[in-house]
């Protein structure tokens, strides 16, 4: 690994000032499960590594904020998210997604903000957070701003964070139309620590709005809504749902160059996982889970 300067700011102001001052020379270190691999293979060559784990505002933890918003601290690990009773009760799809990221050892380090800021198209927490309407809380030189997660991803490795901005927390607003029942599904080549070949979440509420979000089939995770009520209706037939799914999955554009799975397989599995996640979300909505 190439030498670098290590900084461990104690305050948000110091962290933001350092990131703003050093710009592209600096890289943020949270759980390190991606960054340290990149530092070792030379694909990231920062002069300064800024460890944000001791900034109090980014501390791990899940709490209920104003108006019933669930607030997840930036450095909360996948292990903590997957085990948290509020997440398991209200954001079942997110709990399922966090539970399948990497292995135990990876989940004990990998953070939610890191998963989002890497902006991998295959990020497993992204689809569930998208169907729950998650908002990224960022802090930068010009203060704090909130970015809808759907406006956060640009392409692999690129987000709409401005230079010097840092993710402080991820907020999941209390849904306006009653609770959203969600479910996550994915395919990998093998269990344990593979990246998703397809990752997908479905969210339903009592109003009949269905949200489907999917990743690893294009440059960024995609969120699509079904306002026709066809998907949400437990009584609708597969024949009725098929064209709705086709519209929803029209934005999938899997690369033919990916090592993990071919485009035909990914597109086929997208439809299978869509049906499975929908069925689980419907059952959860009906059961009040």
């Amino acid at each position, binding site marked *: 690994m190439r030498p670098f300067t290590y900084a461990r700011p104690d305050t948000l102001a110091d962290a933001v000032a350092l990131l703003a001052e050093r710009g592209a020379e600096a890289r943020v270190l949270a759980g390190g499960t991606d960054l340290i691999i990149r530092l070792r293979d030379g694909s990231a060559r920062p002069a300064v590594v800024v460890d944000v784990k001791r900034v109090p505002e980014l501390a791990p933890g899940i709490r209920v904020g104003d108006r019933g918003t669930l607030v997840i601290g930036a450095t909360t690990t996948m292990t903590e998210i997957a085990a948290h009773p509020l997440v398991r009760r209200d954001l079942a799809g997110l709990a399922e997604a966090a539970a399948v990221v990497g292995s135990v*050892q990876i989940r004990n380090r990998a953070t939610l903000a890191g998963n989002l800021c890497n902006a991998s198209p295959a990020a497993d927490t992204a689809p569930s957070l998208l169907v729950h309407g998650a908002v990224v809380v960022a802090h930068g030189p010009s203060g704090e701003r909130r970015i809808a997660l759907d406006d956060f991803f640009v392409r692999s490795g690129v987000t709409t964070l401005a230079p010097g901005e840092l993710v402080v927390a991820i907020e999941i607003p209390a849904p306006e139309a009653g609770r959203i029942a969600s479910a996550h599904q994915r395919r990998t080549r093998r269990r344990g620590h593979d990246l998703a070949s397809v990752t997908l979440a479905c969210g339903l509420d009592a109003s009949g709005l269905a949200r489907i979000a999917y990743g690893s089939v294009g440059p960024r995770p995609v969120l699509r809504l079904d306002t026709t009520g066809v998907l949400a209706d437990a009584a609708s037939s597969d024949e009725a749902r098929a064209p709705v799914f086709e519209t929803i999955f029209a934005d999938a554009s899997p690369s033919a160059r990916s090592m993990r799975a071919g485009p035909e397989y990914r597109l086929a599995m997208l439809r299978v996982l869509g049906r499975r996640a929908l069925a689980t979300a419907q059952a959860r909505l009906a059961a009040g889970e």
Partner: protein
Amino acid sequence: MPQTTLPIQLTVNGTRRRIAVAPHHTLLEVLREDLRLTGSKECCLVGECGACTVLVDGWSVDACLVLAVEADGADVLTVEGLASPDGRLAPIQAAFLDQGGVQCGFCIPGQLMSAHALLAEHPHPTRAEIEEGMAGNLCRCACYEQIFAAIGQAAAGDAPDLGGLGAGAHAGGARAGAKTSAEGLDQ
């Protein structure tokens, strides 16, 4: 110019250590090369094989993906800390031997640390819990069934020796609590 070294202190297997580390050195490198604890193995270096698994504040981690400076103030348990100071093996170690879980042995330190963490969280793990808990540890000799049997044996027998040297695995996510047990042992 990058920093050359930074002073850190950490508790390793119950002993408080104050050392100067290079910022770009991982916890694995410092354990093996600075502290000469060569039980933790360097293998894939991308967090897939688990040969470098150690416990940091009770959480199992791949030591190749943690900078040593990140472990400043932490309580680290390596495979060298599993057995009693008098050399008596921990139940999970004895069970690995009983069940023939060790062939070439290279992955075993990491397997033991993951098994140790698993048993701390699930004292009587189901087959599914064992498979999930051990999914981050690969064995080229494919001793998986013997390793799973060893975990079953350790779970069925006496409670695993989680007291160890104080840096035992967390229970139920009590990460902060894991540190306190070792505080008194470093003097």
